[in-house]
Each structure stands twice: as structure tokens, then as C-alpha cells.
């Protein structure tokens, strides 16, 4: 409502006892570069990512090359007794998947139990993964299946949020519709503060870490 917009901005300015900011002030605000305190840590970012991610019940397996990813997925699938089908993000579709393994690039439907995706980065600070939505990374793959497997290259691990934002800003297409920072399996404490995994999103988030 245009009159509401005008009224709210007018009320804000009258409360602040001034009119709209002068162009020079506005330009100074737009040029502001925040330098907030970052968390100091000395541990190796890779080791820190794994330790923090696992502390929230995420799991990590390490493989030597991208070509070993299908075998790692197969091992996970058999360990958890899952059917031989998955939603697999497009960039991973051409890996040597077993012949009897049915897969599609998404979106994930209601009965999807397993997804395998890439990611934009991992953030060592708190042990999180960052996924950017797009045709190569549908958001439903991150939230609908019970099991979410994420392929991460060691070189993709950044130190903190600030470095992760730089990757987002460097994208020629701008920010994705959804940027998902995922720090473990879905959980809830809403009943008597008892932590229970698998509230609405994946019950298990498993990282396949490629050297």
C-alpha cells in the first residue's frame, strides 16, 4: 500500500527528527564496510569442519577421488537398507553409477528417500555446508528425502561466513533463490527439550569428502 509506505517512512523520519538522508550520507552508508569481530581459531579448517559437523550428528566419509563417490553412496545405501533409487543433482549424474541404480535430477517428490547433491562450499567455523539453489541444485533435494548425501571437495572448505559470502557475491548470476546453510540433520527440541533428529528435514546428512 503506497500510502502506508509513505506513512511509515514519514513516521520514522519524524521520530528521528530529520528528513530523508542527504545523498552524501546515503552514499556513505552504501559504502560502509563492516569489520566485525571474527571467531579466532587455530585448528586446521578441514579438521574443524569435520569435528563441528560431526558434533551435531552429521557424518563424514573421505574418498580419494570423485570417481569413488558412487561406491561410497552404494555403501551408505546398503548400510541403511535403502532402495536403489535416488534424486541425484545434475553435476553428479555422469559419475559411473551402478546399472541398476535409478536416478533423476529432481525435484524430490514426497516419497524420495535419498538424494545426492554437490554444494557451493563448507564453512569451517561452525561446521556447515552451503548450498545454492538452481537447476543443478534443487532445494527439495536438501529437505524432502530422509537421507541427504553431499559431495564436498576439500578445496571447497572456507574459514568463516565472510569467506562464504564472497563466494556468493562472486556468482555472475547473483544470489540464488535459496541459499541453504546446513549444519547437520533436521532436529527438534519442542517436546520437553529432548533433542530428536529428523523433525521435518533429513534424518541423516552424510558428507562424502573428496580429496
Amino acid at each position: 500500500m503506497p500510502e502506508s509506505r509513505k506513512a511509515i517512512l514519514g513516521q520514522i523520519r519524524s521520530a528521528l527528527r530529520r528528513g530523508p538522508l542527504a545523498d552524501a550520507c546515503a552514499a556513505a552508508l552504501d559504502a560502509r564496510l563492516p569489520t566485525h569481530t571474527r571467531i579466532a581459531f587455530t585448528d586446521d579448517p578441514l579438521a574443524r569442519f569435520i569435528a563441528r559437523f560431526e558434533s551435531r550428528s552429521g557424518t563424514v566419509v573421505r574418498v580419494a577421488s570423485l570417481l569413488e563417490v558412487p561406491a561410497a553412496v552404494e555403501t551408505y545405501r546398503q548400510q541403511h537398507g535403502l532402495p536403489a533409487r535416488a534424486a541425484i543433482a545434475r553435476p553428479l549424474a555422469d559419475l559411473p553409477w551402478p546399472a541398476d541404480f535409478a536416478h533423476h535430477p529432481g525435484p524430490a517428490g514426497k516419497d524420495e528417500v535419498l538424494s545426492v547433491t554437490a554444494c557451493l562450499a563448507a564453512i569451517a567455523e561452525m561446521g556447515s555446508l552451503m548450498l545454492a539453489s538452481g537447476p543443478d541444485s534443487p532445494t527439495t533435494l536438501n529437505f524432502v528425502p530422509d537421507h541427504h548425501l553431499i559431495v564436498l571437495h576439500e578445496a571447497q572448505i572456507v574459514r568463516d561466513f565472510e569467506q562464504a559470502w564472497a563466494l556468493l557475491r562472486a556468482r555472475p548470476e547473483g544470489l540464488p533463490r535459496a541459499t541453504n546453510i546446513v549444519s547437520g540433520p533436521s532436529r527438534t527440541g519442542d517436546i520437553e527439550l529432548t533433542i530428536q533428529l529428523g523433525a521435518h528435514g533429513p534424518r541423516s546428512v552424510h558428507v562424502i569428502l573428496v580429496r
Partner: protein
Amino acid sequence: MKISSPQFKEKSVIALADPRLRQALGQSRKGFVNKRAELVGELPEFERLRDEARDLKNHVLDNLDHYLERYEAAVTAAGGHVHWARDAEEARCIILNICQRVNAKTITKGKTMVSEEIGLNEALEAGGYTVVETDLGEYIIQLAHEPPSHIIAPAIHKTKEQVSELFEAAHGGPRKSSVADLVTEARLVLRDKYFQADVGITGGNFLVAETGSSIIVTNEGNGDLTQTLAKVHIVTSGIERIVPTLEDVALFLRILARSATGQETETYTTLSTGPRRPDDVDGPEEYHVVLVDNGRSKMLGGKFQDMLRCIRCGACMNHCPVYGAIGGHAYGWVYPGPMGAVLTPLFVGLDATYDLPNACTLNGRCESVCPVRIPLPQLLRELRHMQHQQGIRPQGEQRALGAWRFVAERPSLYQFANRLAARVLGRLGGSKGRIASLPFARAWTDSRDMPAPEGKTFLEQWQAR
């Protein structure tokens, strides 16, 4: 939402006598308090981060018009729509209009306190829509037809047994007794709803002026399913939730979860920027943000501006001994605990909320844990002062204070009255030195004895030295 703050005292008495509430509150609060202390202790930077967060919020409030305009431009550039709502009614209208235009039937909701504030669910239901809360806590209280009793743990007042009864009544048997089974049951029921939904409504922890993104910080993933699977995503947020840049978001991500649930981070932090792109295969086709003022701009530039720094973490109520004894419902509106005792009078008026600023011992624990250093006890004192100025404090109290002032301004009279009172009360205390019942102080002596003065007044003893 209906206001029942005038019944604060009655509701507190009932709450204090409710054993299930005491059990639920006792178990839960300890978890929040201990886990926060543990995590904050591990982070040497924490106090500095609190200072920076306070300063950043002040900077945003001083330039709120500018950042709101920048935010609006960025949302529009990303293909989204920004709507401005002066009050609750305008906000409801905007959302109802969108739902009507897209011919919605089922509406899913992630957790949003602003939607509680504007009474959204009642309005949507009256409009004939099916509204489903998807946050587990919100879902539980929706089944119980109750308002939330905590801003981040809305069903904190419910025991597992009560949840089990509610689920059995809503979903049919067999009755589940473990938390794991109850969570699975809700997961399966709500899964269908996400896929049926036409409109998904979430809140916004932060609105980023630089990018036009709205951010939700959650543990369950329900907010993400809500906004990804519905055809239309609507964000409801207060105008004060703006942050300038992504770097500023990082600052808040470092203190929010630690202060709120005592986690290093919540499981999901999601930035939503506009609707689905042309080549996306999922995500909402429309993206709307409803910016709600509803009294916030009036708080700017005045004695209560500090309250606009609030990031809704709930630490103040987790640490409040009054909230811990009576729970959130007694406060009678949307926001309970110390932050609610400040906000509710400002949003709905001083008259209907008389008891809230007075239900505080001024112990200062809330301020000591507030991540953005809101001086909550000082604001509560300020509200009491306003009550006095507007003459809405009880006549008896006003007269008693007047009498006390008359005496206190006359030192010899004051000392005489003190000597007299010490002698009389000392006599009343008898050999035990305790008074079991005292007129004018029944609220004290009904539940415990009053210790009696022993001997002379302090001034007499001082002079005798």
C-alpha cells in the same frame, strides 16, 4: 490475538498451582540456561560480539528509513514484492488479498511471532482457509488451541504426556509414548500438508538490505519445506529486522543460537532471495514480504528505542525467575517474559497491561544475558514511572508513597517513626523474633514469616559507636 493481560494475577496464581506446568518449565529451562552458559564460556569473543551487535542495531535504527528503502529496491530487483503495513489490520488485509488472488485453499506456516502479533491465523481461518502450523511446537499448540508460551519454544509448557493426548485426539491411535514416535507422527502428518499447500508463510529473522534476502534460522527444516513447496511464499517481518549487509548477518549468526537455544548454530540458516528463477525446477513462483510497523516506528527516537534492538532469542525469559515460576501464558499476549513485559504495554496500551512491568524483581538477569544489551530492567522501571504519571497506579499506593515522601523529607520525624516501628515490630516478634501475620503486609506474611527488628535502629546503633 485477544489480550488477557488484565488477568495476569489470577493466571499467575493458577500457573503456580499447576504441577504439570511446573514439571514442564523446570525441565526445559535448565537446559537452555546451562547450555547457553557452556557455549558462551567457550567463546572469548562473546562479550565483544554483544557490544558490536548493540552498536550495529543502533546504527540501523538511526538510519532505518534508508535501509528499508535499500532493502525494498533489492527485493524488487530479485523479482519479489514488498508490502508495507502500518498496523495489524493492514498486514492481515495484504496477506488475505494475496491468498484470495492465487485462489489458495491450504496455507502452511513456519514459525512467525509477527503473525501471532497481527492475529493472522484467526483472520485466515475466518476467510475459509485451512491453516497448518508446521513447526512442531506451534503445531502442538495449534492442536491445543492455545497461544505460544515462549517465543522460541512455543509448547515449552506442555509435557510429553499432554502432547501424546493431543496427537491421539487429532490423528487417532495407537497412542505414542516416546518423543521419537511423537516426532515421527507429526513428520508424516505434516509432510502431506507441505505438498498440498498453495501459500507458505514464514517469519524473517533478518532482512538483508544489501541483497534483498530474508533469512530464517531454524532447527527442524519446516520453514524451508513451507517456503519451497508452496506456490507462493509470504514473509512476515517487523520493520526493525533489517541488517545492512551479509557481514552484519554473520555477526548475529555468532550470537543468536548461542543466546537462544544454547547451540553453536541452529541446523538451518536459509537466505531467500526472490521467487523461483526461470530455469529452477522447484521453489515458489511468487515471493512477498510484508513489512509490519504496528507501533514500532513510534518507539524510535524515544525512551524505548533500545527495545527495537531485540532479535527475539528468548534468553531474557529463559533466565527470568518470574517467567520461570509462572510460564508465558500469564502475560496474556504474544510476547512473554521480560521483553514481553516491555513490548506488550507499548503495543497494546498501559491500561490493559498494568501488572506486566510490575511483575519483575529488577534482579537484572535478563539484561546480563541479552545479546544486544537491551536495558530491560531500566525500561520496565520507565514503564512504572509512566503508569505513575498517567495516574493508573492504585490510589492506595500513590497515597502511601506520598505519605512516605512527607516523612522521608523530615529527618527527625523519619528517625522517630523508625524508632517507633522498630520497637513495636520487635515487641510483636516476641521471643522467636518472627512475625506470623502483619496487617498491610499480608502478601508477605501469608506465605512466610516476617523477620522482626532486633533492638535499635541502624542510626541509633551508628550514633552509639
